[in-house]
């Protein structure tokens, strides 16, 4: 079983991202489970959402303490929350940031820094970074393929909004693939 923990702020779409990643993984033939850790439901407050992937039925219900992957939607969270806590050796951290990573990262963790905010502003016109980060996750982890992700986005959003979000995911996906 592999586990993903998403760190974000209320309103950035962390819960939606977890759900869509689970949908894409399921469509790709895996068992998946996505759930939120609801705190104070308030725009801007730190929130977490979780996804589990496995090739058999998932029974475990606890939150995720030792993730294989993390997604950090907002690098300012790193000041307030230890986003790397419990990360597995060889784990992948996808961090939305405009700057180079200047803080200590646990040994054995691969960091992928991506400017998802700029991608979202350019492709969607709003600083909602979840779909771009999903694209980056697909590229970096290999847990979900891009076509499944595209389908999952289309199931959730309609028309133009789906197209724009897919474009954001694609740009991030290509950027991570290109860098690899």
């Amino acid at each position: 079983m592999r586990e993903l923990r998403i760190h974000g702020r209320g309103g950035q779409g962390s819960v939606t991202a977890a759900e869509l990643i689970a949908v894409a993984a399921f469509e790709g033939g895996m068992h998946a489970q996505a759930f939120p850790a609801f705190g104070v439901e308030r725009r801007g407050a730190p929130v977490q959402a979780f996804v589990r992937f496995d090739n058999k039925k998932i029974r475990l219900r606890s939150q995720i303490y030792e993730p294989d992957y993390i997604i950090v939607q907002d690098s300012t969270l790193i000041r307030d929350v230890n986003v790397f806590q419990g990360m597995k050796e060889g784990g992948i951290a996808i961090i939305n940031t405009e700057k180079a990573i200047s803080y200590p990262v646990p040994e054995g963790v691969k960091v992928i820094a991506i400017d998802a905010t700029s991608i979202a502003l350019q492709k969607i016109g709003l600083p909602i970074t979840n779909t771009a980060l999903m694209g980056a996750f697909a590229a970096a982890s290999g847990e979900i393929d891009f076509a499944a992700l595209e389908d999952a986005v289309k199931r959730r959003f309609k028309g133009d909004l789906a197209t724009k979000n897919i474009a954001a995911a694609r740009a991030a996906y290509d950027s991570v693939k290109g860098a690899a």
Partner: protein
Amino acid sequence: MLEITEGSHAVADAVGKCRPQVIAAYPITPQTHIVEALAEMVANCEIDAEYITVESEFSALSACLGASAAGSRVYSATTSQGLALMFEVCFNCAGMRLPVVMSIVNRALGAPLSIWNDQQDSISLRDSGWLQLYAEDNQEATDLHYLAYRVSEDHSILLPSFVCFDGFILSHTYEPVDTLTKEQADSYLPPFKPFQRLDAADPISFGLFAAPDYYMEFRYEIDQAAKKALSVIPKAGREFGELFGRDYSGLVEGYRMDDADCALVAMGSICGTVKDAIDEMRDAGKKVGLLKIRSFRPFPAEEVKKALSGVSRVAVLDKNISLGSKGAVALEIRDALYGSQTPVYDYIIALGGRDVRKKDIARVVSLAEEGKGDLFYGLRDEVLK
């Protein structure tokens, strides 16, 4: 068809396929997604039901009571403080023998205010005459609604049912659920045939006054009907299994109980985590098993006694506390095992949404081995000083 969907939406889908004729519910976290989805289905004419908007949970269940007495299949959903507000109507539904089915998306009761999960809400309605079924995952939460209507509407039962599943932990989780088609649902659940109903052309009164010379007899009959459900639930559960491959004939369900030395007893979503923890403990050579309680009301004491007959100790995980006494499940287990020498240890756990990990389950088993029980598990040190 296997689909990945949110627990609340899977339940709403199943409820729609149960063809309720009247739905009345008041939104409250974490139940809201269910009734939102049903309201949408009614508005889109996807289901042929009357959706009554009400101003409180008291009104919601009162509307259901009236509609059920008038001969309709009815549905409601609530949680926590909402269920508390329904308290009086709950007793009336059972006393009038109305087969209302209601989802309880389990949540803690205030104060302190908490939107998170434990099972204090439905447990607090323990003595109301409602049947109470608890689901481990979203598949079971979905399927138990079909089962509940079948059992409640059986003319030898005629009691309302709670289908209980853990708030957020199940209701807000996306996971694969095999949903029935409308045809499959219809093949299992026939149209509602009321035992008796309000009809102006053939008048009848429900819920009449009973003087001391008759009140006990009415209560006796409710109790007899609830106990009758101990045989009706397995029958309906078996039939569900024969049709759709998922068997719910067990009022309780054992997991790796053969040769188990220590049995954990639990209800609801925590059972999943317990099973994973048991696999790890078994790998480490510890003989641990789980007895999952699916039907809390009626309580299957005989089945529990039988299932626990070979173990040396029992550790009960209670997501509730009967304040000043013990957890409600532990009390039942001790009663079922009365006269045996098997120690039963109670652990109050996961109240108000506190997370439970596999290592917590292993720790509970260790505590039981040390003979330490009847405690709140995992308290902060500051209250213990």
